[in-house]
Structure formats: structure tokens, C-alpha cells
């Protein structure tokens, strides 16, 4: 039987303390929420995930929410992937529901750990598109200003909003995710916005489109 109880625990990722929120306890496959760029984990179960039958968790990425803020930036989506991997190993696996930046990281996690990711639902949100798909057109070195040291870390906002997401890099992770022995389609694209990396993975096997978020979650929740 599921009950609602918002608690938070700290997980260690190298020098970073990650905040993993429990939004609902229960049994079965966990659902792990990944927020968008500049956001933080919700304190209650979002309506879109209300019908998920198992426990529900939410992770604050490095530099966001109640996770710690590293000095001097240096962010990459691959580091956030490692954040998720820390949580996945702690939970023993999960279905991922990612918003914006969290959607891209969910794709990376599905490709990197197909044995631990039981479906990744990609939805609209801040930081979905990322930066250039080629060399960056950045013409100035940004500064963090007086918000440095607070969440959301301004370095995260600066660096993760312009990180490169080449189409064939994203496709590689989609292909890697399709190695799941359970044979499910591991990626559900539920976002309306279609940056180049989304267009690229749409062509890959194991990626389903046209479902609502609720429908995608229902598919992954099925035993």
C-alpha cells in the first residue's frame, strides 16, 4: 500500500552531496523524477505521475535544490548522468520521468544503464534543447555574479544551457538503451518541443512517440 511521506536523504557523488526526495513510499518499481534546468524537485507527487503504482522519488541535480553547490562550475550533462547513476544504484533501478534538461539526462541514463532504467519518459521543460550542435558560437566568457554559491547554481544555468548535444551522440544513447533484455521500448518521447537531438532519436528503434505522459507511464508501470 502506498503512502505519502516527503522525506529527503543525502547521497554522495564524489565531493557533491545529492538530495534524493521520497515523495511517496511503496513497493514495486520506483519512479524517479528529474527536474529541468534551474528547477528543483517537487515536494509532492505531480499530478501527471499520480497514477504510478510504486514509490516515487525525485533527485536534485548537482547545484540545484538541496544538493550542494560546487565552487567554480564545470558542469556537463555527463556529470548529471553520474548523479542519476548514484540514485539508480541506491534505488536498485527506476523508471525515469525527465523534464527539459532532466529529459536529456534521462536519455543518457537509459543508454548508459539499460539494466537499471525501466523506461525513460521525456517531457518538455527548461533546458530541453541545450546549446549548439556544432562548435559553440559563444563570444564572451560568462560570469556568475553575486548569485554564486546559491541554488540554482548560476554556473549550472550558464554551462548546461549551452552544452553541445550533437544528434548522433544522442542517437548513440538511444541505441544503447535498446539493449534492454526485457524488450520494452525504453524511450518515450512525450515532449512537444523537438530540438535536433529529439528528432535524431525519433528515428531509432526502441523510441516511441505519440503517447501522452500518462500513457507512457502506464506502459512502463505494467508488470
Amino acid at each position, binding site marked *: 500500500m502506498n503512502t505519502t511521506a516527503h522525506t529527503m536523504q543525502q547521497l*554522495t*557523488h*564524489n*565531493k*557533491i552531496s545529492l538530495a534524493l526526495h521520497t515523495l511517496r513510499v511503496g513497493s514495486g518499481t520506483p519512479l524517479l523524477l528529474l527536474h529541468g534546468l534551474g528547477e528543483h524537485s517537487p515536494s509532492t507527487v505531480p499530478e501527471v505521475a499520480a497514477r504510478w503504482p510504486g514509490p516515487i522519488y525525485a533527485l536534485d541535480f*548537482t547545484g540545484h535544490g538541496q544538493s*550542494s553547490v*560546487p*565552487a*567554480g*562550475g*564545470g*558542469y*556537463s*550533462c*555527463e*556529470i548529471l*548522468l*553520474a548523479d542519476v*547513476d*548514484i540514485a539508480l*544504484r541506491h534505488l536498485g533501478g527506476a523508471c525515469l520521468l525527465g523534464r527539459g534538461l532532466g529529459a536529456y539526462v534521462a536519455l543518457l541514463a537509459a*543508454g*548508459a*544503464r539499460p539494466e537499471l532504467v525501466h523506461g525513460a519518459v521525456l517531457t518538455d521543460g527548461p533546458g530541453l534543447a541545450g546549446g549548439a550542435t*556544432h*562548435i*559553440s558560437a*559563444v*563570444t*564572451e*566568457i560568462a560570469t*556568475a555574479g553575486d548569485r*554564486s*554559491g546559491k541554488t540554482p547554481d548560476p*554556473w549550472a544555468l*550558464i*554551462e548546461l544551457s549551452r*552544452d*553541445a*548535444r*550533437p544528434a*548522433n*551522440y544522442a*542517437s*548513440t544513447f538511444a*541505441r*544503447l538503451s535498446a*539493449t534492454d533484455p526485457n524488450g520494452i521500448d525504453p524511450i518515450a518521447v512525450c515532449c512537444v518541443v523537438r530540438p535536433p537531438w529529439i528528432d535524431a532519436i525519433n528515428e531509432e528503434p526502441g523510441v516511441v512517440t505519440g503517447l501522452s505522459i500518462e500513457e507512457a507511464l502506464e506502459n512502463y508501470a505494467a508488470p
Partner: protein
Amino acid sequence: MYLRGTYVVVDPGTVRTDDDDVVVDDDDEPPSKKLETIANTAKPNAPHSKYLWSRVRKNITNHTTRHFGRRRVIQPMINLLTFPGAQRPARSYRTDADGVGIATYEWGNESAPPLFLVHGGSDFAGTYDVFAPIMAAAGYRVISWDHRGHGDSDHTALYGWDADIRDALTVMSSITTQAAPVVAHSKGGALMLQLADASPYRISKLVNIDGMPSKRRMPDAPDHDQTRMMAGEITGWLDFRHEAAATHRKPGTLHELAVRRGKMNPRLPIEWLEYLVTIGARQDDDGWRWKLDPTMRFGGFGPWRPEWTLLRMIALGMPFLGLIGTVDEPMGWGTRPRDLVPWIPRNGRLEAIADVGHFVHIEKPNEVSTMILEFLS
């Protein structure tokens, strides 16, 4: 071709660390024999008679004196060993780069025009101890720094090129906000190509010493095999992140560390590598350890493509000199001169130096410094 030539690293330039050098806390390998004195480690009987082995009190390089604003000035640096032509910096201090302490060094007259030297991945500013004094003697105020996680700079939670470039710009801005000449090696060269592209008004002339990465060397494997290899690199890197907090560098004698480094620097003399140990490593109770952050390791994947650097290079407008050795080495990019010819900017030139490896300026300090001084003049 799917993935061919796009197989790159998360922390470019930190990928060539000798993994044999890193252990985790639960590693049961016994530490090297405890070293009581410098003499124990300096191998006085080794065939180094032409070099001066100085017995200096342990921890003589630990020093702090006074503060000048953001800079903490420390005593002139005295090294445990000497090497022909090598001089420790005249001045050393820390620069605060958004909360990250960057160890910064200077050779030469403070009132002379600045010249910035940028080291490569897994290196540190002390690798310029022969080259920098030559440039200082030619009339420059030579400034260099240890990149974050390297040498005596702070170890940070995150590493990335944008962060390295910001750190560099912070150090440079602490000296001058005017355009200044830059000499950069390996990863430092690639970093400075990006800075020169992003902020061309900060670099007056750019010398790149074998820091012009083309496509990374990849085996001629079918696409599906490359995908499998990438999966292996991803899981290996993620697995390491789980234990990164417990990693530390393996201790050893001064000579053992030099030998380890020699695997990645096979063309450099052991005496030079031992000299570097006394700068880039620290002496603990159980032996010497490289200061390089042990959480930096092989990445093996990421969206960044080495050849993007060349797209930036051809766009440069300032005078540009590219130097490259013709002998491939483990720490090199594997770039051949003919790979670079189409990408040399109109205001630049490329010099390929025969029978020299990746560390062009260390193998041929006089020849290379003469060439660079001529270019800078």
C-alpha cells in the same frame, strides 16, 4: 560514419593520467616503504653525477607569508632537486577564481610585458621551469598557473573546459585586461584556441605547442563494435564515479613516481621526471604522491569532438604559430602536420619539428624558445 571520429572524452586533457597511479581506500596494496628523509628517495647512487642532488629539509616548500588583496604571496620557491637550466618561479601566489584557488607563478621582472604560459593536461606550471626562465631572460614577465585539480591548485568537484578557460581568464585578468601573448601546450593549447575564438581581444599573439587536436585515434572497428566499446567506457566511468570520493594516488619513492610518469613521457630523461616529482608531487609519511586530483580519470565519451578545435583555429585573426613534433607519443593527440595544414589561419604558420615528441619545448628548449621569441618580436 556513425561514431567514427566522434569518440571523445568528458574531461578532455585529463584522460591520459596513468590509471596505475590511482587506488581506492579499500585497496590492500601495501604502501611503499616509509621514507624518513629526502636522501632515502633521491637515489644518491643513481648515475646522475652531473646533476646536483641537494639534501634539503623535508617540507621546505610548505610556506605562507603575507597577503596582498586576492594574492597570497609566498616565499621564493626552493626545490629539492635541480636540473640544468631549470629555475623555480621568482614569485608564487594563489588567485581566487570564483572560489577556486589557482596556484599562480611568475618568472622575470614584474614591470616587463606579460607573457602567459599554459600547461597541458596532467601537467603543472613547473613543467615550464626550463622554458619560462629563457623567456623571462628575454624580457618578459612570464606568468603561468596550475589548472584546477593540477599541481597546487584546488581540487574541485567538477572539471570542464569552460571552467578551465574561466580560471585562465581570471588569472590573466589579474595581470592585465589588455591583449597579451600566450604560449600554450597540449590541452592548454586547445583551451587557448577556444579562448582566442571567444575573446580575441584578450590574446595578441598565440603560440600553440602540439595542442591542435584532430580526430582521436580510433581502431578501425565496425560501427556496432564502436558502440559496444563506448558502452564499456560509459559504464567504466560511471563505476569510477561511485568510488571517486575514496580514491587517492598510490604512494611511492621519488624515483618510482618518475618511472610511472615515464610511461607517458617516454622521451624525457629520468632526471627531468624526478625533478618534476619534487614539484608536482607531495611527500606524505608513506611516500610521494602526485598532487593531480585522483578523481580525474579516463572519460572516454562525451559530445565534444576534438576536431572542433580546428574549426576555431582557422577563424583566428591574431598572429598564430603552431608547433608540432613529428614523433607520436602517448600524451599527444596523434595529430600529424598534414592534418593541420588546411586549418592554419591566414595570419599563421605551422612548424613541424623533426625527431621531437609531444613535449617540444622540453626536448628542444633553446631551439623552440628562439623560434617563439622571433615570432613574438
